[in-house]
């Protein structure tokens, strides 16, 4: 292992505090009143850090906040100009360095989808890009996939290093922290202690074992053609989607859903143009001012969600826009299973009704 340190359980808080000295550190942590409700929170002493638990919402809000100001505007009264006021628009911002510590490989990998769109498309998104450049991802090799996980089915796996700058490998009394990228190496230097040969060996074994593990059945990465063939099969979509409530839960907890809306929120003489999470499952997402809606019901909307992740994104960027974290399945109020929908796309017999 190139650059690795050992981080005893007992020194975890110390390490997080050390990292917090020059960065915002985001860790999965239990809520004060609900310890099993694990979300990414800014590290602070006393926080109940839960590296062992799967977080409810992905870490996407670290790079893509639920709501952020794109620009601010102020109207300054000035009767010498015809409009009676001058408008000042300001898009300056400061982005602090950040560390996401202890996310799962799927969370880190989710940002590869964002990168394709926000960094490698025809226009580069500066807000995302600045955060991306200043954020280090430390993922934990995952040993507790549940019934909703399917990372292997989308070409990833519980030890996937893609998108991570460093990896944590859990041992009985602590973690081996291994650098993957330069940025990761810089972080590893700041914390932990020199690992023993046994610890390195144990970490290697665990990494090998996790690397061989298959989470989720089959492969869902080559469904582009099947999706297009199924596009107008109303019975198929109704069969799977009639139970959908058309809420935005699946998209909000998803590490790869990046769709957003832009709105102006003003009061008095000043305001902000903000970008906030939006969901393709909401009717307003595509509702035009004329009243026309190209995706008028949950069936078209869910079809677009499936298509975006498993067909459109594939034909545009050559990869699926899904990291297999299973959150949309695990937390769906009515257990809509996107795996089952995608898996059934090429199935010819009528298994759906």
């Amino acid at each position, binding site marked *: 292992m190139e650059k690795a340190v050992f981080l005893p359980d007992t020194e975890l808080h110390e390490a997080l505090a050390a990292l917090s000295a020059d960065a915002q550190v985001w860790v999965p942590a239990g809520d004060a009143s609900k310890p099993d409700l694990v979300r990414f929170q800014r590290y602070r002493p006393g926080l109940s850090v839960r590296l062992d638990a799967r977080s409810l919402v992905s870490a996407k809000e670290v790079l893509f906040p639920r709501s952020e100001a794109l620009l601010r505007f102020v109207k300054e009264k000035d009767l010498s100009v015809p*409009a009676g006021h001058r408008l000042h*628009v300001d898009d300056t911002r400061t982005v602090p360095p950040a560390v996401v510590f202890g996310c799962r490989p799927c969370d880190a990998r989710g940002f590869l989808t964002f990168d394709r769109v926000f960094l490698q498309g*025809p226009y*580069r998104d500066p807000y995302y890009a600045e955060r991306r450049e200043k954020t280090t991802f430390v993922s934990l090799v995952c040993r507790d996939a549940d019934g909703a996980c399917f990372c292997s089915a989308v070409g990833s796996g519980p030890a996937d290093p893609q998108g991570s700058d460093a990896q944590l490998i859990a041992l009985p009394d602590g973690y081996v922290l291994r650098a993957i990228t330069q940025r990761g190496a810089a972080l590893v230097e700041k914390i932990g202690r020199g690992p023993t040969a046994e610890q390195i060996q144990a970490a290697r074994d665990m990494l090998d074992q996790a690397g061989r593990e298959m989470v989720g059945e089959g492969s869902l990465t080559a469904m582009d053609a099947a999706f297009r063939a199924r596009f107008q099969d109303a019975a198929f979509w109704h069969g799977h989607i009639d139970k959908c409530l058309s809420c935005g839960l699946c998209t909000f907890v998803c590490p790869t859903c*990046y769709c957003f809306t*832009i709105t*102006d929120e*003003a009061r008095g003489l000043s305001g902000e*143009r903000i970008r906030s999470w939006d969901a393709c499952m909401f009717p307003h997402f595509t509702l035009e001012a004329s009243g026309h809606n190209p*995706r008028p019901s949950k069936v078209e909307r869910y079809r677009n969600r499936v298509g975006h992740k498993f067909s459109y994104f594939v034909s545009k960027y050559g990869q699926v826009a899904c990291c297999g974290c299973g959150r949309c399945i695990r937390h769906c109020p009515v257990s809509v299973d996107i795996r089952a929908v995608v898996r059934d796309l090429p199935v010819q017999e009528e298994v759906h009704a």
Partner: protein
Amino acid sequence: MPNVVSKNNPYLPQMGTIREIIQETPNIKTFRIVLDDPEQMAAFRFEPGQVGQLSVFGVGESTFVINSPPTRREYLQFSVMKTGEVTRALHRLCEGDPIGVRAPLGNSFPVEALKGKDILFVGGGIGMAPLRTLLLTMVDRREEFGDITVIYGARSPQDLCYRYEFDQWRAAGVNLVLTVDREFPGWEERVGFVPTVLAEEAPSPYNRVAITCGPPIMIKFVLAGLKELGYEDDQILTTLERRMKCGIGLCGRCNIGDTYVCVDGPVFSNTQLRQMVSEL
């Protein structure tokens, strides 16, 4: 290429001022906008068919086609029909008011490929706006194009946009056919729906490209009518509309399959439309 959409921050509008407002119809206003930075205004380049996002700070942004031609660059012209939140706010603006502009965005009409061809424009209501930019480009470069026929219809004479320009178009050699849905006192042009007038006029598809824009129901019948007249799919161009937010292919709502109307459109040939998933 000089471009007003900032490379550093494509979300940041350039400041402009409304130089002139023209009340086209009871619910359509035309805005003539000048960018506040004279250098930027001088360097501004675009192709016919490209769109811009207009900002009313405090209300929001909306997408409109730049309907002045690239050949006339003293101002950027946008026509706005009052329908939603932003368009209502735009209609409340006055000459001299500041406005934000993010332009040019999207693709454009293939002007070079149209050279030497006869052209048929079929427009309805506000749908004349995207056609006007191309029409005036052709008028200004008249000798490069063959016959130009325009079939333009609206519900009533007062719903026709750019009425004050019709004489100039005709003087430039445009065969302008105007129609309204029913008889009106004093109306001496054609009466009837656009597709009907199209069938009566029946411009030959030989060496001709048809460009159509208007309400969806009109488009539907115009496309059928053009087919009837013998136009092939790649001889028909149209522009699509979608709800848009970012205008730069990121926010994810204006897609039709993997095609994003904001960056891959708004101009599409009928051939392209047929290849898309059917989700209009």
